[in-house]
């Protein structure tokens, strides 16, 4: 679980090789390598559009980062994918079935932004409840507790844990059912850099074993950790590609600058590059925008300050 960044990079290279595809996505007709297909999704809240005609494909067996400022519609998109968001129009297909359908409820794991666990239950009781609901055996609970490094806290009342521990309990409650698709809304908020690194290593491990991960973050620098990036702003997708190709296309050296360049582009020429073009780039070659070597390692320590500011 405590692997370093270079190690994580090597799993990413393995994953972008052709043929490494989660079996679960194979039944999605015409989208054999997409775990999630979003088509013309419109969501309104209080009469105000939150997502406007959004199209997106999320490749299977990879870590896709959903980045953008607060209010961009990231959480709403995630809620639509897990099937708890009331949708105005459009379709969301997950692992070949309509989002939220009964068949998916054992295959999709969802972790909300604020830790959603029972604070008056112990860590183990929380995990066991979600395991039992999905008909998962007791052994899996032990396994997941070890995975998120909470073995020593398993008998503690969740309400007595620190914020970081609590968010790991929340994550563990989703992991316990061994989902094919894991949707994580800002899972690393408020975690110290060491913990954050080990969580990203865990995400890499999961993706390497075929799980599809969609991870949102408003910390743009976490882009370096993802196989693919979806940049969102004002309810629309600005870009969907790997970090390398994004940097090359925008002529920038880090994700934040690239993001700003895309916003400037969109401002000058609405109908141009950033809009439909960026969207289709992701659709045509979701798996092929691989990164040649290790990831762009932004030193983890440099991030925590920014995290605090944006929060």
């Amino acid at each position, binding site marked *: 679980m405590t692997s370093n960044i270079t190690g994580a990079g090597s799993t990413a290279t393995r994953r972008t090789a052709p043929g490494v595809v989660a079996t679960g996505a194979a039944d999605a007709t015409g989208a054999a390598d997409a775990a999630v297909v979003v088509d013309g999704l419109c969501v309104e809240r209080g009469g105000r559009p939150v997502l406007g005609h959004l199209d997106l494909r999320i490749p299977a067996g990879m870590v896709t980062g959903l980045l953008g400022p607060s209010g961009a519609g990231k959480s709403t998109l995630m809620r639509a994918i897990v099937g708890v968001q009331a949708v105005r129009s459009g379709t969301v297909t997950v692992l070949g079935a309509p989002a939220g359908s009964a068949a998916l409820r*054992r295959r999709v794991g969802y972790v*909300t932004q604020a830790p959603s666990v029972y604070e008056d*239950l112990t860590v183990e009781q929380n995990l066991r409840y979600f395991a039992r609901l999905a*008909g998962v055996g007791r052994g899996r609970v032990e396994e997941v507790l070890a995975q998120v490094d909470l073995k020593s806290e398993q008998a503690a009342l969740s309400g007595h844990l620190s914020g970081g521990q609590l968010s790991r309990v929340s994550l563990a*409650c*989703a992991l316990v059912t061994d989902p094919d698709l894991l949707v994580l809304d800002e899972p690393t908020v408020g975690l110290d850099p060491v913990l954050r690194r080990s969580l990203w290593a865990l995400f890499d491990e999961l993706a390497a074993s075929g799980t599809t991960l969609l991870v949102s973050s408003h910390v743009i620098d976490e882009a370096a950790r993802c196989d693919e990036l979806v940049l969102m702003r004002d309810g629309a997708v600005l870009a969907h590609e790997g970090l390398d190709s994004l940097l090359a296309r925008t002529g920038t050296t880090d994700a934040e600058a690239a993001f700003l360049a895309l916003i400037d582009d969109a401002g000058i020429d609405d109908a141009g590059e950033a809009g439909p073009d960026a969207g289709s780039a992701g659709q045509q070659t979701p798996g092929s925008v691989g990164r040649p070597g290790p990831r762009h390692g932004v030193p983890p320590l440099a991030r925590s300050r920014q995290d605090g500011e944006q929060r």
Partner: protein
Amino acid sequence: MTGTLVTARRVLAQLRHDPRTIALILVVPCVLMGLLAWMYHDHQPQVFDRIGPALLGLFPLVVMFIVTSVSTLRERRSGTLERLWTTPVTKGAFVAGYALAFGLMSVIQAVIAVGFSIWVCGLDLQGPVWQLIVVAVLAAVLGTCMGLLASGFARTEFQAVQFMPAFILPQFLLCGLLMPRDQLPEVLRWLSDVLPLSYAVDATKTLATSSDSGADVARDCAVLVGFIALAVVAGTATLRRRTP
């Protein structure tokens, strides 16, 4: 079905970590009955015998209403409910799980409260004790199910607590305890006919005054069961897997 049992078990496990709430559920009705017996003890012990059984229906109902509405609302607000909707649990199983867990607490509560009233406070009952226990349990389960329903209309814990006077006190005024229901103005009598607490109080009144109570009590209990079913169905209908 599994979802129901698993959820009931989880709710009870949560309760186990909260001994103060357990104590409040079990002790408060006894304390109130004790106060009532003490009040009338010296001068009008017959008043305690007359209204005691009715209050044995009312107190558990109020306690369970509050406990249930606040705890399900807490689930809504903490995000755990939204997470649950992404798991295989069904809406019906969720509501039934809560009803089962708190229903179990209701049974314990009713047995203790009735036992305390009769053997400690000296409540003189004409009908059989077990029938009073049945009525008290049904009233408490009804409180649980109405609490589930009310929490569907509350956005905050603050509102949920205020639903208690809004839902329960009108029923208390019209249930026949303050004034016999057949002496109420006609419109209010019709109203009291469609309020569930009236039937709980009717049943306990019969038990207080008549030793041949079976048929009447059974009919009132059947009506209570009907109201419980209605509250469960309506409570389930207020839940939405998808929210804006």
